[in-house]
């Protein structure tokens, strides 16, 4: 059957789907006439319209998942007892564990061997962990220690850190929507956390909502805590990235365009992910997900790479009661501040610009519509 006939069959099928049973016969008779092949095709499609089949089942429901590295109860590196697997990330797995040395529950992150396979990568990693340990701030997840564990497959590097009770900001944005006041407060807190890290010479090269845990405590406002300084590097260090490659590291949607074009990381540029997180905050993450799909890391030489617009999303599409001018004001006011000042003042710029521009009352806190 040629494509032209199949397209006609499709159009008749779709029209028939919207017809009643009584109308359908007349429609087929008039649309197909005496073209038996066309009619057979339409009827075959219509027969499937109400039938269930493989397409109604999820494709990937039961694909076996490879085993976790550690089972609950396992003793690791001579001091940690695994309690449970918390999650998996790009660099490895995260477990809840009991640290017998500190006598405290901790989060224990495994670092996949491939991250440290490059020559010199492990020493850079250890140096970065030492730097990150010095960062102490309520909005930064405290790193406790590094350890290594021998398994049958070789050595596994581990980082222990404060165990946080909460969900990621990405999860939060899936199920709830922040109003502007909440979003601005969160932006300021994240900026202060980043600023504290920058004062210790530590950059976070992959700041994004899934690397922020929103910690809930009774009687207190939710506190965002930045995690995963695993790919952070010391500001001004000579080496390009943790993996030893010269390609930019991070999540394209949140990265500064300058980094995508191959410029070396520096505190002002690593603040841009903060601004992008902030501008996505009231929006929820649906747009973010779509943007991730489109905004793949560009290939080619730095000169060939396209520049990315700085404006993340349009307010009307995001459902914000904010004029386009006001939104643009946040974007344009924030960016110069990003480039010349610390993360903290960036957060304040976002906050102040948002407050000044926001004239309508905040929308009620409500879950996003589900289809």
């Amino acid at each position, binding site marked *: 059957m040629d494509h032209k006939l*199949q397209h006609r069959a499709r159009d008749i099928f779709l029209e028939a789907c919207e017809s009643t049973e009584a109308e359908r016969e007349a429609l087929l008779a008039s649309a197909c006439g005496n073209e038996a092949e066309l009619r057979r095709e339409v009827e*075959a499609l219509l027969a*499937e319209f109400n*039938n269930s089949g493989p*397409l109604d089942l999820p494709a990937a429901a039961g694909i076996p998942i490879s085993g976790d590295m550690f089972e609950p109860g396992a003793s690791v590196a001579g001091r940690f007892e695994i309690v449970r697997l918390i999650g998996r990330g790009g660099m490895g797995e995260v477990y809840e564990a009991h640290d017998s040395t500190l006598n405290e529950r901790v989060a224990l992150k495994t670092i996949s061997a491939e991250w440290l396979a490059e020559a010199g990568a492990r020493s850079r990693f250890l140096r970065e962990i030492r730097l990150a340990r010095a960062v102490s701030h309520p909005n930064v997840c405290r790193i406790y220690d590094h350890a290594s564990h021998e398994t049958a497959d070789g050595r596994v590097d581990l980082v222990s850190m404060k165990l946080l009770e909460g969900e990621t900001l990405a999860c939060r944005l899936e199920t709830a929507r922040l109003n502007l006041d909440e979003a601005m407060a969160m932006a300021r807190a994240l900026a202060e956390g980043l600023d504290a890290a920058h004062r210790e010479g530590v950059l976070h090269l992959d700041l994004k909502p899934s690397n922020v845990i929103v910690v809930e405590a009774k009687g207190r406002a939710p506190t965002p805590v930045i995690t995963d300084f695993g790919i952070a590097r010391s500001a001004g260090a000579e080496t390009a990235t943790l993996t030893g490659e010269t390609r930019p590291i991070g999540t394209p949607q949140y990265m500064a365009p300058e980094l995508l074009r191959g410029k070396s990381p520096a505190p002002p540029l690593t603040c841009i992910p903060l601004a992008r997180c902030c501008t996505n905050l009231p929006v929820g993450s649906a747009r973010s997900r779509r943007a991730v799909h489109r905004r793949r890391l560009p290939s080619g030489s730095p000169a060939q790479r396209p520049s990315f617009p700085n404006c993340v999303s349009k307010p009307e599409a995001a459902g914000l009661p904010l004029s386009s001018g006001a939104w643009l004001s946040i974007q344009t006011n924030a960016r110069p501040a990003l480039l010349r000042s610390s993360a903290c003042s960036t957060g304040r710029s976002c906050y102040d610009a948002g407050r000044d521009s926001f004239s309508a009352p905040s929308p009620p806190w409500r879950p996003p519509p589900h289809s």
Partner: protein
Amino acid sequence: MRNVLIDYAKKAKAAKRGRDFERVSIESKPVADTTALDLDELIAVANAMDKLQDVDDVAHRVAMLRHYLGMSEKEVAQELELGERTVRRRWQYGRAFLHRELRQGGGSQAAAPG
């Protein structure tokens, strides 16, 4: 995602055909009790998808996102920047086309060489 699934299905089928049948790795674990689609269906759907792409590229993209990524019609509409009605209609067609192909054995026949 699609390629991962198809590679997985082909590997698992190859492992099942092997002589050393008792030494079944985790990858070749029988899927019937753990997954919604069996290995033959995974491969047949993939081949039917290729045929749909020849006929209607938009319906193919909608079907890929619906089936392999489990997106809702609304999410597909946002992803592809199409109207929700368009997505619903293309999914109606794509789903019927794919089921018709599978029922007529088109997907399985094409799958046989793989």
